[in-house]
């Protein structure tokens, strides 16, 4: 093996990943807690109520952050899937396997927070004419499809490669669905341009809070993904020497 690719294969070693993340996790969790605390306290206590939407605008800080993050799942799974299919690196599949339920959960949270916000601002919990709601719903369906394919195939190796292929196809499809649903008339707020002026509709007090929340949610995603992947490693590599030693130590 040429030296240039060694780092890549080391990255794919479950043991290497497990040891590295043991060191990273405290920092990641700390940063996540910090950003979450700042974002939530800011949004709930200090953000001035919107002149039109009142206090309901606070939920947008969470909604925008979760929505943005949930869009990253299919690209993430497609990249992991490509690595699984081309290099057959087991770690990529462990990440992809746990990304699917997390992605479904984030997508559901996006729909739920959007729907709660919409019930006050639009006066309706669900609105088919809004293209973003509808394409999110279909992203949820596609993710559930990937999950059910994973559970349906018993052989882990086959399931990994089948889900990898479906994630790649699904990733392309999500984009097509998004643009085709956009052809409908839309009620959704177009993204408001960022403004530097305090007190304007999307002034710094709002978008900085949202930016803090986006970082917080991405950190939350990273931490959850790492934790579930570590579990997966312990389960799948339970015959390996280092896992046995780890388990013996823990006892």
């Amino acid at each position, binding site marked *: 093996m040429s030296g240039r690719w060694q780092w890549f294969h080391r990255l794919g070693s479950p043991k290497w990943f497990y040891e590295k993340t043991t060191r990273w996790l405290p920092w990641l969790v700390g940063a996540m807690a910090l950003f979450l605390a700042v974002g939530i306290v800011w949004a709930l206590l200090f953000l001035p109520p919107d002149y039109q939407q009142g206090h309901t605008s606070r939920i947008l800080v969470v909604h925008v952050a979760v929505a943005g993050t949930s869009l990253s799942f299919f690209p993430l799974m497609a990249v992991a899937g490509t690595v699984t299919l081309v290099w057959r690196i087991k770690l990529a599949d462990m990440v992809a396997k746990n990304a699917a339920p997390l992605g479904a959960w984030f997508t559901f949270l996006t729909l739920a927070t959007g729907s709660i916000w919409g019930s006050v601002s639009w006066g309706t919990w669900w609105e088919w004419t809004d293209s973003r709601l509808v394409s999110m719903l279909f992203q949820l369906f*596609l993710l559930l499809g990937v999950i*059910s*394919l994973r559970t*349906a195939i018993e052989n882990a190796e086959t399931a990994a490669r089948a889900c990898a*292929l479906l994630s790649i196809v699904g990733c392309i499809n999500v984009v097509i*669905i998004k643009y085709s649903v956009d*052809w409908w008339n839309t009620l959704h707020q177009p993204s408001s341009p960022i403004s530097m002026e305090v007190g304007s509709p999307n002034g710094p007090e709002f978008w900085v809070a949202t930016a803090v929340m986006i970082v917080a949610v991405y950190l939350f995603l990273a931490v959850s993904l790492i934790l579930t992947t570590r579990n997966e490693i312990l389960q799948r590599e339970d015959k390996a020497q280092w896992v046995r030693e780890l388990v013996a130590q823990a006892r």
Partner: protein
Amino acid sequence: MNRAGAGAAFRATLKRDLLISVKRRNDILNPFMFFVIVVSLFPIGISPESAMLRQIAAGVIWIAVLLASMLSMDSLYRSDYEDGSLEQLLLSSQPLYLLVFAKNIAHWLVSGLPVILVSPLLAYMLALPAEGYVTLVLSLLLGTPVVGMLGSIAVALTVGLGSRGLILAVITVPMSVPVLIFGTLAVQNSLAGGSPLGYLALLGAMLAAAVSLAPVATAAALRISLN
């Protein structure tokens, strides 16, 4: 030699699949009957008023076509998988893309085309106005092969599973949404007096993309399923 071989293999696969379908009429007839029955449920379930029916006619037919193709899809690779001829296809020296494509065409000819041929009659029963028929048939002609080829990927991924009837639909139906959107928008647009050409062109673009990419994915999926 190999060139001619690829063409011959394509034709042989096409002919073989068509012959098998003719001999197993139930596999074709049941989804077809399902399509007709589902369409005739809508006037009963929603409203027999023609004013209401004409608004939903195109959508009802498109949705029924989608559901019926989910049913017929199941037989696409199953019997080949069970009798081992699918493995022979994978082992053959001919490009798997062409063989998969031939199977898709054969399947569309026996399951998609009959449904499209009967759709004007059902559209008439749903009181679709006269301006809609040509567009409906054209949109179905362009759209159903896309659905079939998307479904073919899902069938290939699940071919080794015991019970897979529903997982196939769960995977394929959400992926077919763009086809449904543009198919119904095309008909609605021509009912409103506009030109449906833009939407039909989009369906055509999807068909071109599906023809060039979907058999590649299906071939990869078959290799995964059969290891």
